[in-house]
């Protein structure tokens, strides 16, 4: 029985691989997208239980994806977990008038902390 469906959006294939494997190993179903546009499409199509989102990506940045998610009536309640290497973007994401992301972690990723955060978010949601 799956603990939930997580959509991983990151332009770095190694990181997508890492995160999806980590989540699958811990009982989640996963979806993956390598850029913002593909991520939005998958989100609309499969309504995941949680989305992990990278910020600096080609085509559509994580900030734009986050804004679109929050303004989409069907997706605005989906918890978003930001995973980024650029700490300046924290300000950018948090200063928006929409609901702040449910989770935030700066790279490098601490797998145990990430899993713990995600399980807490899903439990309280």
């Amino acid at each position: 029985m799956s603990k939930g469906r997580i959509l991983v959006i990151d332009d770095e294939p190694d990181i997508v691989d890492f995160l999806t494997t980590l989540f699958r190993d811990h009982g989640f179903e996963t979806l993956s997208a390598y850029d913002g546009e593909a991520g939005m499409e998958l989100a609309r199509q499969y309504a995941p239980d949680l989305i992990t989102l990278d910020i600096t990506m080609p085509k559509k940045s994580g900030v734009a994806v986050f804004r679109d998610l929050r303004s989409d009536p069907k997706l605005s309640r989906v918890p978003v977990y930001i995973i980024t290497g650029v700490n300046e973007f924290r300000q950018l994401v948090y200063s928006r008038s929409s609901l702040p992301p449910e989770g935030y972690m700066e790279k490098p990723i601490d797998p145990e902390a990430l899993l713990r955060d995600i399980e807490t978010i899903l439990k309280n949601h």
Partner: protein
Amino acid sequence: MSEPLALKIQEETVPLPYEVLFNEVPCYISIQDREYRILKTNRRFRESFGSKQGSYCYQIYKDRQEKCPVCPVEKTFIDGQSHMSEETWTRQDGSLVQVIVYTTPIYNDEHEIIAVMEMSTDITEVKHLQTKLRASQERLAYLFEEVPCYISIQDKNFRIVRANRKFKEDFGDQVGDYCFSVYKHRDEECLNCPVAATFSDGQVHTSEEVVTSKSGESIHVLVSTAPIRNAHGEITRVMEMSTNITEIRRLQSQLESLGMLVGSISHGIKGLLTGLDGGAYFMKSGLEKDEMERVRKGWAIMERNISKIRSMVLDVLYYAKDREPVWESVQPRELAESVAKILDSKAEKLGIAFRKNLEEEMRPFDGDAKALHSMLVNVLENSFDACRTDKVKPDHAVHFRVWETMEHVFFEIQDNGIGMDQETREKLFCMFFSSKGMEGTGLGLFVANKIVTKHGGKISVESSLGKGSRFLIRIPITKQ
């Protein structure tokens, strides 16, 4: 006056009304005969030179024993005209006085010149001021010429009417030419010209400009302008004073670069550490589950990230100091093949055609294989990125060609990606200039260019926005 004047002069008994004037006028007045003997003097004269009636003029003024070589009194005796001269006399107290002397003839009834009146004004103070003025003018001129800035004076049409030595040294003796043509090689005036602003509002204006010297060198200048007004208060000229701040800007940009370098490295390292963590997770969980496939995948990720760290460190080293190439004999084809191999998987992943055209038989050349390898990977990766980010064309291709001539080996990398506008093209090899937003560190092409330059080679770029770019790298076969 019916009485002969000469008589009256000699009498000197009854003061006549004009005598009062004669005595009180604030000049030295003397009347002399043909022998330059003083016949009569006024009070002011006597105060300064004593009452030496009957003495010779040259004795009194100059302590000479004979007549001066040039004498205005003599001239007046000869031609009956008034004459003027400038003289330095010695007062009876020994002090010097500078005077301007006017002479005028005195006639008798037969219209013969019987005496000459010499009227002299003390101009010592004027002379003194004149000397001071000249000295300050000379100082000003010296300052204008020697001040370590570029100074030019321009008219309303931005023509240079005067320029100082430093200006002429670096920009040529361009008096009469337009400022914009001298400084920027332009055909028309610049936008936001501080000289134009000063002409219009009479205020001091400043701006920072990049100008080109006569030797073609780019010079950063801090420009200040000030109005020059005529007697009616109208602005007829504007003075432009420019300080060369190229060195300051260079140091500043180096400092900024260092800051950016630290930022971009820490950003890059975070990403790479995440990759390593991922690899480690695959390997660890693979070993626990006894899944070799996972271990292999983890190892591949580790290797990729380690190699990225290596090339990053090399980039930084190249930036941090002028690393000299480690010379060896390099096989162009081998080099190109090993580079192409790295990019093959990227091409496949991105769905971009990667066409290689490597000449079969090529001679080895002198080079630093590792540095050239990273340089070619850098340039190729840029081309792939340019294709990846182009959303207009349906298909993309990167061409990689290598060939040799008698003296050079050529590497050509051509893509049909997004292409570059002129600004991007010009700044392409500048440090930390990146057109990729947060994606790029802005080090890659800067270092690539440095590597090629260290090899005595050259990278040339052709590009047009929306169409694609072509990089041509030329390396000498024999080390220079």
